């Protein structure tokens, strides 16, 4: 229907004016007794126009698109009642009479004219919305051709109306004389009305109570509706307007067919209403469950949700959920419903293991519909709750292993029909999936957290190491650090760079990750501040040990090697606290030596043994000598066959390449290590400091 641009508020006004015109026409006709055939058509057109305009007006009202079945049904009943009351009241008050001798019926008095106008107006105003509520019901579950059938019906209905007006013949299915044509279209209309009348799937979705309620009301309504036309429309409406009479007739027939069919359907569905109700609840509840738990990753919340929701749908007396701990190989109660503190205490202490173990071994649902006849007749003896039947359903993960058991108990015997068991199993499998997902998420979050922690440790370590090597005349320095995946705790630093002196320290903190990084930071701070007051490597290490020992965990320690090179005196002084030895290439004799002086690692001893063990050693160095400091990550770098890189290999490399500048020497060493590893990962940090005079 095209949208006609008439302001809403004008519509009732126009309708009112048109209604008055038709009234005027009736009055004139009654008094003049002259037949104006052409005027008659105009009058009929105006009457149809009133209906159309009123329909357009109703389209703007919210009830036109009401989709709620119950509201539509209530509107329907109200409108029908109002129609009856209005027409009946006027009929009783005015007592109109019509002559039935000719067709259409004619009013015998002025009162009858007025009555026919009022009845018609009531029919238009109330019957149109009644049909609209029917349309809403039919469209509740729209089928493929519903729209098409509607259009066909409307076209034939209009054709019938026009033919009725033109031939002035009743719709009596007589197919005789004048009544032939309009009765043909009328019958076609009826056929389609019957088809449309089968569109009543809204009935299926009513609840059981509503089905009972509406089928009783339906039977009364059918009777009222069948009487409707004869009582209210037949005489007055036809007398006022033949077109409207025909229209009302068709509408009434449709209403009758539809209400008879709907009531029949309602009655037919009554026996299955209970089952249908239940199935609907199950479907909704499973849908709710899967929707809620797929968005929930909190393990505890999930466990409670599943227990609560299953209790509601299964209508169990009480429910509880056991969770299986793979490590402890035992069950514990994860959630429960309808049990108070005292009862849950009893449940915790009763011999649940018998039934748990049974389900654990069979991995199948256990049901007993009469507990007294089962092997678990004494299971709930201590509990104050009466248990007649109970079921336990395993929660299986994707590998088919048990992660929990959902128990449901009912006070009545025969509490679990196959539907209940199916539903309980559906719940259990949904719950198992959700719980497993939550678990996987937790693991991946944990992994992410560790990854982040390692990243922080790596970052800390990177910042703690000198950002650049000191630049000193006549001294080449280069460093190499390769961090392992799990940050190892390798550390080196330079200090006291003045007057031809350079201090350096290399170390390895025991342990890995963030704790190693923190000890490293502490060590760096301590050594940097001690180096302001002490020049001797031994003094620095002894004081470092004193300061660190108190703050370190017992099982942690740090291997350190401190050294001081004096370019004026051409000497290297060093002390080794449990760290890897120094390698010294002596250019005078063209050979390397390793200095493994005495000393224990920092943090192992409070001072006495540490101080007395630590040795300070001084060697002479010459132009083109090379000194190498390294960590065990280098000497212990392992090839696939388990062989270690070793100090010997390092010494040999340095000697063979002693003519190179340190930068080039470093490249050679890197190439050799990578060649040796041959794709194996480093399991510890690797650090190398090369100094060449």
């Amino acid at each position, binding site marked *: 229907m095209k949208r006609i641009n008439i302001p809403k508020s004008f519509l009732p006004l126009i309708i009112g004016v048109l209604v008055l015109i038709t009234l005027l026409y009736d009055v004139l006709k009654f008094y003049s007794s002259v037949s104006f055939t052409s005027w008659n058509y105009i009058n009929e057109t105006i009457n149809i126009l009133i209906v159309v305009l009123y329909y357009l007006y109703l389209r703007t009202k919210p009830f036109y698109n009401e989709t709620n079945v119950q509201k539509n049904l209530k509107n329907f009943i109200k409108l029908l009642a109002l129609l009856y009351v209005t027409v009946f009241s006027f009929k009783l008050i005015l007592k109109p009479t019509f002559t039935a001798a000719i067709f259409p019926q004619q009013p015998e008095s002025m009162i009858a004219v007025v009555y026919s106008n009022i009845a018609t107006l009531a029919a238009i105003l109330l019957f149109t919305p009644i049909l609209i509520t029917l349309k809403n019901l039919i469209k509740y579950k729209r089928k493929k051709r519903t729209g098409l059938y509607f259009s066909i019906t409307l076209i034939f209905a209009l054709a019938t109306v026009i033919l009725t007006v033109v031939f002035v013949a009743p719709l009596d299915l007589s197919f005789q004389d004048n009544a032939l044509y309009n009765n043909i279209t009328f019958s076609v209309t009826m056929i389609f009305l019957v088809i449309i009348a089968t569109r009543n799937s809204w009935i299926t979705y009513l609840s059981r109570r509503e089905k009972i309620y509406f089928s009783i009301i339906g039977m009364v309504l059918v009777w009222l509706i069948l009487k409707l036309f004869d009582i209210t429309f037949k005489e007055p409406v036809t007398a006022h307007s033949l077109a409207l009479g025909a229209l009302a007739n068709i509408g009434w027939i449709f209403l009758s067919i539809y209400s008879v069919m709907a009531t029949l359907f309602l009655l037919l569905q009554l026996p299955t209403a209970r089952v249908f109700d239940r199935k609907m609840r199950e479907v909704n509840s499973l849908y709710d469950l899967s929707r809620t738990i797929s968005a929930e990753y909190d393990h505890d919340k999930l466990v409670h949700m599943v227990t609560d929701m299953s209790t509601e749908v299964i209508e169990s007396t009480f429910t509880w959920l056991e969770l299986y701990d793979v490590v402890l190989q035992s069950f514990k109660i994860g959630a429960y419903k309808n049990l108070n503190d005292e009862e849950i205490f009893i449940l915790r202490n009763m011999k649940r293991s018998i039934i748990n173990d049974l389900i654990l071994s069979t991995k199948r649902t256990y049901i007993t519909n009469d507990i007294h006849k089962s092997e678990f007749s004494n299971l709930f003896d201590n509990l104050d709750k009466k248990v007649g039947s109970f079921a336990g359903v395993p929660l299986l993960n994707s590998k088919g292993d048990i992660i929990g058991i959902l128990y449901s108990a009912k006070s009545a015997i025969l509490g679990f029909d196959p539907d209940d068991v199916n539903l309980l199993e559906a719940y259990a499998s949904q719950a198992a999936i959700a719980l497993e997902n939550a678990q996987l998420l937790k693991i991946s979050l944990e992994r992410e957290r560790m990854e982040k922690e390692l990243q922080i440790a790596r970052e800390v370590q990177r910042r703690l190491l000198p950002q650049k090597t000191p630049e000193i005349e006549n001294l080449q320095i280069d460093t190499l650090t390769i961090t392992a995946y799990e940050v190892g705790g390798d550390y080196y630093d330079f200090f006291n760079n003045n007057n031809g002196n350079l201090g350096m320290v290399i170390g390895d903190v025991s*342990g890995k990750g963030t704790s190693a990084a923190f000890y490293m930071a502490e060590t760096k701070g301590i050594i940097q501040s001690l180096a302001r007051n002490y020049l001797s490597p031994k003094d620095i290490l002894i004081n470092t040990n004193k300061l660190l020992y108190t703050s370190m965990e017992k099982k942690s320690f740090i291997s350190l090697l401190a050294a001081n090179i004096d370019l004026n005196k051409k000497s290297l002084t060093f002390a080794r606290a449990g760290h890897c030895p120094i390698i010294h290439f002596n250019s005078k004799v063209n050979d390397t030596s390793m200095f493994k002086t005495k000393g224990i690692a920092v943090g*192992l001893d409070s001072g006495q043994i540490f101080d007395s*063990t630590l040795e300070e050693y001084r060697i002479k160095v010459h132009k083109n000598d090379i000194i190498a400091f390294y960590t065990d990550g280098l000497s212990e770098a392992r090839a696939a066959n388990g062989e270690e890189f070793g100090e010997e290999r390092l010494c040999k490399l340095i000697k063979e390449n002693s003519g190179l500048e340190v930068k080039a020497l470093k490249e050679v060493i890197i190439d050799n290590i990578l060649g040796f590893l041959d794709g194996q990962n480093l399991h510890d940090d690797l650090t190398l400091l090369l100094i060449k005079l």
Partner: protein
Amino acid sequence: MSGFDISRSDFDNVTALHLSGFLDAHTVPVFEDAIQGLLKENIFNIIVNMQNLDYISSAGLGVFMGFIEEIREQGGDIKLSNLSSKVYKVFDLLGFPALFEIFDDENSAKSKFGHSK
């Protein structure tokens, strides 16, 4: 990484733990639990026999340091025996020989406990 295993032999006043495999940050908890277990039984004279130990990391050494103070306070000790040269090198580098008694074989370690008693 290869596995790690501990077996235990009890003698009159000494208990020996035989370590085998790789003792690193990942397997350290197993060793810690074993020593913790001995302390719960009030066994403080402990020999750690490392004949079949292939590798020990700094975390592994840390276990000794974590318990030694408590054990010595109780009048006991941890003595080490049968260290392979590779394992001994790690102990030696860090200066552990200054802190622990290390023996070539389990019997000499046992007799050392005997003497101290």
